[in-house]
Structure formats: C-alpha cells, structure tokens
C-alpha cells in the first residue's frame, strides 16, 4: 500500500502515477488515462470532503493487475463511512445555466470503472475499483 499525504496532494498524485507506470509495463494509454483520472478524483475527494473527525488521516492506495490486462485500484481510509456508489449523479448535459459544478469526478469514475465494490470494515472505508 502507498501512504497518501492529503496535505501534499500534488506529490501524492505524482507518486501514484509513478507507481502506475513502474508497476504495469506497456499499459494501454486509455487504461493509463482512466486509472490516473480515477486516482486523481478519489484522492482529491478525500482531501476536500472526507471527515476524519479527531482521527489522524490514514489513507493508502494499492494497485494490482488482474487477468486480461484489468487493473484493480484499492483505496483505504479511516474517514467517516462514505460509499460513492450511493452518491447521486449530477445532471448531465442540458443548458449551460443548469450545469452543475459538483459530482462530476464521482460520476466519471463510475462510468470508467468496470466494477466498484465498497465496504466499511474495522473503521476503514475500503473501495475497490476494477477497470
């Protein structure tokens, strides 16, 4: 697991991207983009919205490869329970005036993922995303 420092997101995201590049050789550029995109969105969401109450943030990321070039991204954090699968989708399309600023990152993560699993165990959120 790679520890994520929410106070230094730029460095943390760089570390995740380096891990992605070193761990998976010859990764399809589209898969690479989607994996980087999801990491950016999930980790940014932690930094902006996660509620750790009085706990010291403990956030980590793990990358695994599965059969048929699939990737498994695992995020683990000790914030208050948050299941992004339950998060409502923003209104997509329509008029410029009605376009919403929030929720796009989670929406696109759901669109790009082949499978998302969430559980809350031993005071940790565990989010597994397959793409």
């Amino acid at each position, binding site marked *: 697991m790679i520890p994520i420092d929410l106070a230094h*997101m*730029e460095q943390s*995201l760089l570390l995740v991207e380096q891990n992605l590049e070193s761990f998976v050789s010859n990764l399809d*550029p*589209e898969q690479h*983009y*989607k994996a*980087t*995109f999801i990491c*950016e*969105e999930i980790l*940014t969401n932690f930094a902006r919205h996660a509620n750790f109450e009085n706990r010291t943030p403990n956030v980590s990321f793990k990358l695994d490869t599965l059969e048929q070039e699939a990737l498994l991204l695992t995020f683990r954090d000790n914030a208050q329970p948050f299941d992004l699968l339950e998060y409502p989708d923003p209104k*997509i*399309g*329509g*008029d*410029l*005036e009605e*376009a919403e*600023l929030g929720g*796009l*990152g989670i*929406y*696109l993560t759901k*669109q790009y993922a082949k499978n998302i699993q969430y559980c809350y165990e031993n005071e940790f959120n565990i989010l597994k995303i397959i793409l």
Partner: protein
Amino acid sequence: MEIDYYNEGDILIVAPSGKLDTTHAPDFSKRIKELFEDKPKACLIDLSNITFLASSGLQSILAAAKNAKKEEMTFGVFGMQKMAYNVFTMSGFNQFIQSFDSKEDALANLL
C-alpha cells in the same frame, strides 16, 4: 502549467498546456478571469496541449463559459486530445459548450 494567450482579430485565444487538474485548474481560472477583464468579444480555449483533463479542469472550463455568457461573450474550445474529449463529452459538456477539432474549424464556425 504554462498559459499562453493571443488575439485573432476580435477573438481571444487562450492556450494552456500540461495538466488541467486539481493542482493547476485554479491557475487557469485566475488567468481567465484576468483576461476577461479586457472584455473580448469572443474567447476560444486551445486545449490541444492539455495532456490530462480532470473534473476540476472541466469545472474551470465551465466557470469560464458561464462567465463568458454573463459578459455576452461568444465562447468555445478546440483541439482536445482523444481522452480529454472523452471526458468532455461523457460529462455532457459538448451539449452546452461549442467544441471544434481545430483552430481553423473554430474560427470558421464559432457562433
């Protein structure tokens, strides 16, 4: 992130390069706000050198488009790379922001 800008007649063209992500979107928004103070008649964002577009980048483009509309300024984007265009269209932004393949296309067809 580098943000170049120049004028083609009455049209302001803004050309950011690199990643339009959580780290860099605030710089882009700040620059756009400054450039809009000169009240150009139209603005095109050249996204051809954007290698990564995150939702925060989309939000900065949306804010620019809303600001442009408020100022009665014509607004569009052009030159997106394949995955940036995918992010843009999957978010439905192509339904309310004019997007073009190239600068030539944009200059000829911007409404």
